[in-house]
């Protein structure tokens, strides 16, 4: 009897909200495709001629570099996250985690220059590396350069997401492990690995999607056109050739390739059974042994050096710029404000949409309990992520074509920028929020049903306290991503809507490399400030 009572009601408001959020995402992507398909239908020949030996080579390289980049980012991140989870009082831990959100906000060329400042032909390490090699250091141009840059972007991201997943391990499990005197190895196998494994497909999928769409990094550090991704081909199709049919075909191919890989990644995962009991124990950690502490510290330091190195190079060259003059320029101030506002709005929208999807997925999973997942459940889970592999230039161009006859494109430019950035950031926000929400739901679902709490009251009283921190993490990532965005703004941007990255590239494009370096520093600082603020909001008043 009890069981029947405790079944979730069939019309769960969470499912409705989630479906609406999903529809909004589908509209954004579908609208863009519709615009391009209508235009492309005038001359569809580009679609068929897209499939040639060049495309085959490009697709192969795209997949190869993306898979390698994912492997090299995700595997080390598992261990770095575990090390960070084991040492909650590690010196500077908070700052490390905040720094880890910054790479996302850096435009690709800024990161590339930062990386080259260390490992390039004229980099800091060129002397040492030449001495070892016995001849002039050739730099890291080629696949190695691409991989280093991708790991720089994605290792910190994956680490933070894994850490979020580890945070969902119930305190009682730790208490038990501690009482049983469990060593590091069994604790990893029995407690940490299941939590990490549950997050693995999602995180790896996200990193894969970011790497498969890489553009500037692949061209700039790739050393030549042999290193070309599908994204470059799509850009080429829309830019010099203006061939919407070809662009749509290539985008569909990119989505299909990603789909196959994400499907394969799902097999790596596992469903974890959360803890349905309310936590009674206070957080207690396994005390790590001396050897493990040293190892963990070394691991964290190594990851920090790898990520902070290029950032330090960016800061150093930024400090050479005339920062006082830059800060005084009204264009810079206006761009800083525009960037911050657009990023805040995009992050808010992104987090709201993501939360809706996460809640709907959970509600659907609860309703199902056993049996195969429905299409809707898949869509609320990984479906939205596929937005990431639709190039911004495709979304922008498609909507432009669609709206040009009905509306003033300039007037809706800010709306488009916010909407596209918000949706692009959703995969990040979902990864950050889902573990926390699912764990909280596992604990509170029955209680809520029993007490008849639902809707806004439930969110405010029950979910909010445990969601606060993951929401802040998701918010920080979404903000960093929108802050660094160039793709959408480049198409919709006009004089009146200039963001910091836009300004940065404009300076770089007119010999003002010093100014650009200064603006990169400013961009990094704005990002760090916003991340700090999000963290502070997420921590709440009590703790």
């Amino acid at each position, binding site marked *: 009897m009890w069981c029947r009572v405790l079944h979730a009601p069939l019309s769960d408001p969470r499912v409705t909200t989630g479906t609406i959020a999903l529809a909004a995402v589908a509209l954004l992507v579908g609208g863009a495709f519709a615009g391009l398909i209508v235009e492309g239908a005038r001359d569809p020949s580009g679609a068929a001629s897209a499939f040639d030996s*060049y495309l085959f*080579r490009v697709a192969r390289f795209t997949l190869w570099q993306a898979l390698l980049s994912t492997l090299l980012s995700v595997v080390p991140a598992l261990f770095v996250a575990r090390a960070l989870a084991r040492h909650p009082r590690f010196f500077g831990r908070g700052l490390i985690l905040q720094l880890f959100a910054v790479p996302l906000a850096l435009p690709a*060329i800024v990161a*590339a*220059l930062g990386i*080259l400042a260390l490992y*390039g*032909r*004229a980099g800091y390490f060129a002397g040492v590396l030449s001495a070892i090699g016995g001849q*002039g250091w050739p*730099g890291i*141009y080629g696949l190695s350069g691409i991989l280093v840059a991708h790991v720089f972007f994605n290792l910190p991201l994956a680490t933070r997401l894994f850490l979020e997943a580890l945070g969902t391990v119930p305190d009682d499990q730790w208490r038990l492990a501690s009482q049983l005197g469990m060593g590091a190895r069994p604790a990893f196998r029995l407690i940490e690995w299941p939590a990490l494994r549950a997050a693995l497909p999602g995180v790896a999928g996200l990193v894969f999607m970011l790497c498969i769409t890489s*553009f*500037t990094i692949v*061209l*700039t*550090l*790739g*050393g*030549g*056109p*042999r290193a070309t991704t599908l994204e*470059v081909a799509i*850009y*080429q199709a*829309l*830019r*010099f*050739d*203006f061939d919407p049919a070809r662009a749509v075909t290539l985008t569909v191919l990119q989505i299909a390739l990603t789909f196959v890989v994400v499907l394969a990644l799902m097999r790596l995962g596992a469903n974890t059974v959360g803890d349905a009991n309310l936590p009674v124990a206070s957080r207690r950690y396994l005390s790590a042994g001396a050897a493990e502490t040293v190892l963990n510290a070394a691991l964290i330091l190594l990851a920090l050096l790898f990520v902070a190195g290029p950032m330090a190079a960016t800061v150093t060259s930024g400090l050479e710029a005339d920062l006082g003059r830059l800060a005084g320029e009204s*264009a810079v101030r206006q761009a800083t*404000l*525009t960037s911050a*506002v657009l990023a*805040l*709005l995009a992050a*808010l929208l992104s987090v709201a949409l993501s939360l809706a999807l996460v809640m709907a997925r959970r509600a659907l999973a609860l309703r199902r309990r056993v049996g195969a997942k429905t299409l809707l459940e898949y869509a609320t889970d990984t479906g939205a992520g596929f937005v990431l592999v639709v190039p911004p230039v495709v979304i922008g*161009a498609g909507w*432009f*074509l669609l709206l*040009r006859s009905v509306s003033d494109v*300039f*007037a809706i430019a*800010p709306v488009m920028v916010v909407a596209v950035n918000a949706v692009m950031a959703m995969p990040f926000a979902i990864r950050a929020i889902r573990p926390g929400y699912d764990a909280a739901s596992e604990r509170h679902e029955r209680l809520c049903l029993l007490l008849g709490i639902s809707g806004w009251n439930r969110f*405010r009283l029950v979910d909010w306290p445990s969601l606060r921190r993951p929401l802040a993490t998701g918010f920080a990532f979404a903000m960093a991503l929108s802050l660094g965005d160039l793709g959408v703004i*480049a*198409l919709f*941007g*006009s*004089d009146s*809507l200039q963001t910091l990255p836009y300004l940065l*590239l404009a300076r*770089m*494009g*007119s*010999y003002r*490399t010093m100014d*650009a370096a200064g603006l990169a520093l400013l961009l990094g600082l704005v990002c760090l400030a916003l991340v700090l603020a999000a963290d502070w*909001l997420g921590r709440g*008043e009590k703790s």
Partner: protein
Amino acid sequence: MRTFLYTVVSAVLLASTVLAGIGPAFAQEKLTVYTYESFTADWGPGPAVKKAFEAECGCTLEFVAVADGVALLNRVRLEGAATKADIVLGLDTNLTAEAKATGLFSPHGAVIDVNVPGGWSDDIFVPFDYGYFAVVYDTEKLKTPPKSLKELVEGNADEKIVIQDPRTSTPGLGLLLWVRSVYGDKAPEAWAKLKAKVLTVTPGWSEAYGLFTKGEAPMVLSYTTSPAYHMVAENTERYQAASFEEGQYLQIEVAGITTSGAKNPLAKQFLTFMTGPKFQDVIPETNWMFPAGKPEKPLNPAFDKLVKPTKTLLFSPEEVAANRKAWVDEWLSMMSK
């Protein structure tokens, strides 16, 4: 919760104040010019041009800027016949054939008095400046720069050059055409040799020039006028352009009236203004190109120090339009080996 909500509300309020300032300015008479962003930047020709033209016409001149020349053409294509642009300023001759093919441009209908190498006759587009592609080198890293394209192609493979991708960048396409105009059908063989010297191929000019000034390579594909910027703005002669025996490839930047702009009488007035002294005087030290019209002020002495091309190389817009795809594919297959 309350702090969070407060933040949300204030963010939305802040956003509406920022975005409210973005609406279009209304005026009785207005001319809308689409151009690339470095034209309208604070340090670009845009501000001075706007001031001078508005004083002359008693109207409002509005610039709308996109990333670069190619994006400019695409923007107009995306907007189609309903485009708000009266004038499109900043295409180059490699794009004009395709721009004409869109049918979105209208004849300028004026006698155009301009002075560009090789002369000018076009019933739709009017040039406003020009420049030459050149290999720019760092005198501190490279003591003996190549004296010809042949020397660059066959020279020491340790002396690297950063070039741009012709699939995504205008200078990249420029180098492709340059090599083609010197080597003809032997261009693929030349690329096969040059490949060893290419450090990397960037998506655009900015990335390439950034790598060059960071010291990653002693040479970069840029313009003969690049050293003028460093001499005038940074007071250094460190970066110089190499003069090639075979000649330099020319880039001519043009403007044209759109079909919808043809109805605006200010459009024709602007094109005449564009080739006149008030516009042309601004160009050299803001756009770092040579004026195509009739400036009144003499050029900054730094421009006299620049490389003077022994010969000017240029394909016609029609040749470029007809062969671009085949030549880029050829380049791709040689460079990808």
